[in-house]
């Protein structure tokens, strides 16, 4: 389905960049906001996002003997290292490579789940998940419904890297969450940090519904938090208010949360605008209530995502805010998103909904 050269060249780039310590190129469009340090969930240690994800799968494999991890190149640790060390610890019948075939991986995962096995599938890039669209949309999403709850594949979780990475161009950068958001029956989750990645992945794996877990790949190495060593779950279907504010609500998920956090700081410092920042966390089913409560308070809203504007999930959120908060609105709802183009290569900085585009939108809406 896709060229191996492309996939590996990305890893080589990643490795090279780490070696050179030149993370600047990656982080040019956002500043990572680490999670606050807390001992509430027990002892912590510094982990980046891939290590946090690895830790989550390690816990599941150690506690649930009927659980397996599989996908392309998963055996040696995965091209992003998320499964490293797991085959050595749990054996190659539990952590294994599959043939290079996305529809096979998801179909196989559904069958495992139907037979009662906890199935953690990896699709190497979200950009390559489309051959599995039928298995996800027509099969996984509808399994419980169509059988009147006789059969389900709730034990299936599909992990896949997504979103901009600095040089991924058309086929290593997409954020396709809204495609899947049109398939009732799926849960769709995207973490913003190492700490949330571990807790949310554990929740997805144990949730009795099939989940797609989108991992913003730029954060695999860049996002470092004090991550609890123990087992913990974070709530699905629950948005999180990260910064409370009065004047405008900024809604995003994944990497974009960090863009919004930075722009909220700038807007406050330079223009005295108080922004409320919400991480949606779960795209489907999404937390309408938290968003509506916030917009009723601030009277203004911006939804921001990397995916193209038309048919993006921002459209759904905007429509819903309009229905729920009409009389509270002080200005139109704005979407600051990627453009309706394929994800470009050398124009990435122009394409992304960066802090300057968000800042401009905030100022326009506050002065509307």
């Amino acid at each position: 389905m896709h060229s191996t050269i492309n996939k590996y060249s990305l890893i080589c780039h990643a490795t090279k960049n780490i070696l050179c310590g030149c993370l600047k190129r990656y982080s040019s469009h956002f500043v990572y906001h680490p999670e606050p340090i807390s001992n509430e969930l027990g002892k912590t240690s510094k982990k980046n996002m891939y290590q946090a994800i690895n830790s989550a799968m390690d816990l599941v494999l150690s506690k649930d003997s009927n659980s397996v991890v599989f996908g392309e190149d998963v055996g040696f640790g995965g091209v992003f290292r998320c499964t490293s060390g797991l085959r050595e610890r749990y054996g190659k019948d539990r952590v294994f490579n599959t043939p290079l075939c996305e529809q096979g991986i998801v179909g196989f995962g559904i069958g495992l789940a139907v037979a009662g096995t906890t199935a953690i599938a990896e699709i190497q890039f979200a950009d390559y998940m489309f051959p599995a669209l039928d298995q996800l949309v027509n099969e996984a999403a509808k399994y419980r419904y169509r059988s009147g709850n006789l059969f389900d594949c709730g034990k299936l979780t599909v992990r896949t890297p997504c979103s901009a990475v600095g040089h991924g161009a058309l086929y290593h950068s997409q954020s396709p969450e809204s495609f899947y958001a049109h398939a009732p029956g799926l849960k769709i989750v995207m973490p913003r940090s190492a700490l949330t990645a571990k807790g949310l992945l554990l929740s997805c794996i144990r949730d009795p519904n099939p989940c797609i877990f989108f991992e913003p790949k730029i954060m695999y190495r860049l996002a470092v938090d004090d991550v609890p060593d123990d087992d913990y779950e974070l709530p699905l279907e629950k948005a999180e208010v990260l910064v409370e504010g009065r004047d405008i609500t900024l809604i995003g998920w994944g990497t974009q949360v960090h863009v919004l956090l930075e722009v909220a700081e700038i807007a406050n410092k330079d223009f005295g605008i108080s922004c409320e920042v919400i991480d949606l966390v779960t795209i489907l089913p999404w937390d309408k209530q938290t968003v509506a409560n916030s917009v009723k308070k601030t009277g203004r809203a911006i939804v921001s995502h990397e995916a193209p504007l038309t048919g993006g999930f921002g459209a759904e959120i905007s429509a819903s805010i309009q229905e729920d908060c009409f009389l509270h609105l002080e200005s139109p709802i704005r979407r600051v998103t990627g453009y309706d183009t394929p994800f470009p290569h050398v124009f990435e900085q122009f394409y992304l909904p960066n802090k300057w585009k968000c800042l401009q939108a905030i100022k326009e809406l506050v002065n509307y």
Partner: protein
Amino acid sequence: MYSAEIMLKRLINIKLFKKQYMLSSTIPANTEESVYRGINKVNYTSNLDINEPSLNSPVPIFRILNDTGDILNNCKSIIIPENNELIKMYKSMVLLSIMDKILYESQRQGRISFYMTNEGEEAAQIGSAAGLNSNDLVYGQYREAGVLLFRGFTPEQFMNQCFGNIDDLGKGKQMPVHYGSKNLNFVTLSSPLTTQLPQAVGSAYSFKRSKVDRCTIVYFGEGASSEGDAHAAFNFASTLDCPIIFFCRNNGYAISTPANEQYRGDGIVSHGPGYGIATIRVDGNDILAVYNSVLKAREYVMTHTRPILLEAMTYRRGHHSTSDDSTAYRSKDEIKQWSIKNPIIRFKQLLEKNNLWNNQNDVEYEKETKKQLMQLFAIASKKNKPNWREMFNDVYHEIPNNLLEQMNSLEDHISQYSDHYPKQ
């Protein structure tokens, strides 16, 4: 531009090179341990041959009964079921065919919305079902009602599903013939073709790991084998050593497309070697041959922890579905020719020759069955439909807030416009 002299010299050099090359190739090519990953041993050859597929010698079709229901002389180590099992198999075939007629006609009269008959493939279905253990997991395509029937799904349950009434196990969610039963280890069908194949492989892998005496069997048509999911499933099953029986019903047609427009190799069985999968090709209209093939296939997948691909050669005598008229693309003569090979008659002849069944039994059983099915049909048709709120159930394990909100808004709407909706 080269001068003529230089050109000539170059030509001579090329000739010399060729000659040298030919001389050095007189050392015989030999067999070596392969350095190529995934290939065990390799022969080198100095012959540049194109490897033509051997279409002139198709894989033979295993059969036990001839067209008139006699056991062939040279059949070795076959298993004939006990008499009562033989009669159960025969009655299941007849029951299936009677149920088909009633439900097909009921669709024609507008009583149910859709139906698919199993006509012509009764032996492939019942014979394979009889060869399995009851806890083996079945993934069907859509023309396997006989498998479910043989496992104990009652005519009443079939009819409840076709009407989508309050007693339908699927709670009225799917079109007719999308059956499923947790108790009978038959995964609920879905309409998309071939999606069940990689899923069945995943379940087989799960059984292998849990070391239970279970395999999966997955049914599909020859048309379905053209989908990408078939390739995915064969390859996953082979590379991951899964105990699964791939049961292909090669019935000659995918809706209107004849099998010869579906593939150019030797049917579906020829896919096996390419994936490193063992195969059996069997006469799908010979119930004893199908039964023995599945018994043997089951033993093979359980003892070797490997997949097997079984191709049952048969013929879909009925239309694809009630939305199809097959006379638009095949001749009546062709259908008639296959009517003579009716698998029910063939099996009946065997039973008659062994004094296990006779015409009188047939008449009585058919009469009694028809009467019983018509009564069940009348009951199923009168049962209520599930409450409309059921529409929102089972999307997720628990109803999420967005669906609760939508359910409440429909409730409100219905309270104002109740005249325009079916009464419960």
